[in-house]
């Protein structure tokens, strides 16, 4: 899923200051799963903002609505009337959803309520970890299912580096050394020999480095 974290209230307050009537639009997919922007979070945020502005003697009118996903037009359309009757939209969707909203409702003010961070998984209750950076040319078969592009802080193809200590990365004791994980896992699979070969420099063209990407499925274009 895409993982995001709600922006600090102080930052959201400043964004909303010019708008006394705001639609808080939640998204029921990724951001709901990581507790940043689903229906519950939209409701909580509305209450918190009313309290926060109330302390200054300002009142803000918030309307809360959540759609299934903000990255698909068919779902965004459902919010059209709500968007129309408010002065600004605080979208709690990931960056893609915010932009889809801006595209769809060209005359509306669409503001981002969360900081979108990474593509990841729920490793255990309450812990989301970054797993994939969308390099466009997946080599997980080479690395025993652990991605060095994303999880090695230096993106090494032929790791580890000299800073790996006790299975942790030099940048933080909370960060696992991906190469330690790769070596351990491939040893367990009996495939350590495969890591002895030279892995060439990565071709970054399929990644964001090659420019913003798009995907066309001719079989679905009508």
């Amino acid at each position, binding site marked *: 899923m895409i993982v995001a974290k709600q922006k600090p209230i102080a930052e959201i307050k400043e964004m909303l200051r010019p708008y006394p009537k705001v639609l808080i639009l939640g998204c029921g997919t990724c951001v709901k799963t990581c507790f940043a922007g689903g229906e519950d979070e939209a409701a909580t945020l509305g209450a918190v903002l009313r309290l926060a502005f109330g302390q200054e003697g300002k009142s803000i009118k918030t309307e809360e609505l959540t759609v299934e996903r903000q990255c698909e037009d068919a779902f965004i359309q459902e919010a059209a009337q709500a968007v129309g009757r408010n002065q600004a939209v605080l979208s709690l969707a990931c960056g893609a959803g915010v932009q889809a909203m801006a595209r769809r409702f060209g005359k509306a003010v669409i503001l981002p309520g969360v900081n979108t961070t990474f593509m990841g998984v729920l490793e255990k209750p309450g812990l989301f970890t970054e797993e994939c950076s969308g390099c466009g040319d997946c080599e997980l078969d080479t690395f025993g299912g652990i991605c060095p592009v994303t999880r090695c*802080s*230096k*993106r*090494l*193809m*032929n*790791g*580890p*580096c*000299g*800073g*790996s*200590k*006790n*299975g942790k990365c*030099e*940048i933080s004791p909370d960060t696992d*050394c991906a190469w*330690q994980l790769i*070596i351990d896992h491939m040893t367990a699979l009996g495939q350590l020999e495969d*890591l*002895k070969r*030279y*892995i*060439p*420099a*990565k071709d*970054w063209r399929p990644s964001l480095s090659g420019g913003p990407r798009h995907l066309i499925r001719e079989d679905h274009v009508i």
Partner: protein
Amino acid sequence: MKSDVQSRLKSVLTGGGFAVTAECGPPRGANANVIYKKGELLKGCVDAVNVTDNQTAVVRMSSLAACLHLLELGVEPVMQMVTRDRNRIALQSDIMGAYSLGIRNLLCLSGDHQSLGSQPEAMNVFDIDSVNLLHAVRTMRDEGEDMSGFTLNDAPKMFIGAAENPFADPLAYRVVRLAKKIAAGADFIQTQCVFNLPRFKEWMRMACEEGLTEKVYIMAGITPLKSAKMAQFMATKVAGMDMPESVIKRMSGVTGSAAVEEGQKIALETIAELRIIPGVRGIHIMAIEAEERVPELVRAAGLLPRSQK
């Protein structure tokens, strides 16, 4: 003629000699006098001087420029290059430029992560890793081609080095990584500074067993300590450092100039042990901001004079 310049470090090692190199950190500014001073101190007591590349991700004068200043003094540089800050385009470009200026030795590294440095807000590059860089430099030298297969107008014929850390984890894999670097193009290896001799000997033993010491010149790292505080700092704050309790204890027993002397003693004892380990072909002295200690250390270790050829 610049192209006539040969690598003295290479001559010493291929000639069967025990090589000595030291390290020189460029200034955090444009002051070339810092390099001149360090260069004068080291001239004549080492075979070559490594110039670090924005080491510990702290912004400093470029390695390329500092190497050129050393050349002006008649000191042979080893240009260090990290892959953290430059992509393959810039790296290959700088290598060609460096060779054209008379630089003959190159050390290929990944580099410390920028989050630990002086400008952690910077984006990192890591387009290629140090092993890819070794491969690229070797290809430039031996095939005369860049990474796209383009035939170069004068190939940079560098003497190629890499760093290895016998003290980082995982221990067993460290020898695999050494083998990979050699296969990719490393002619010589400089290791992280040695305080834990038993662990270092074990790593050398494994390297010998794999036949790697026949294929590469290994130079062991040495750092003379100056205080217990320094020993403690290295033990806890420097990535990939292995500082045994016994060494910290020895340094804790003394202060001031006595501590500096003790640090020197430890370094000399270590050098003496290193010289008799099969496969160790030299030492690399990393006297961080204490380059003035190097001449005395080399002399006391019985490693002077250095050949001037």
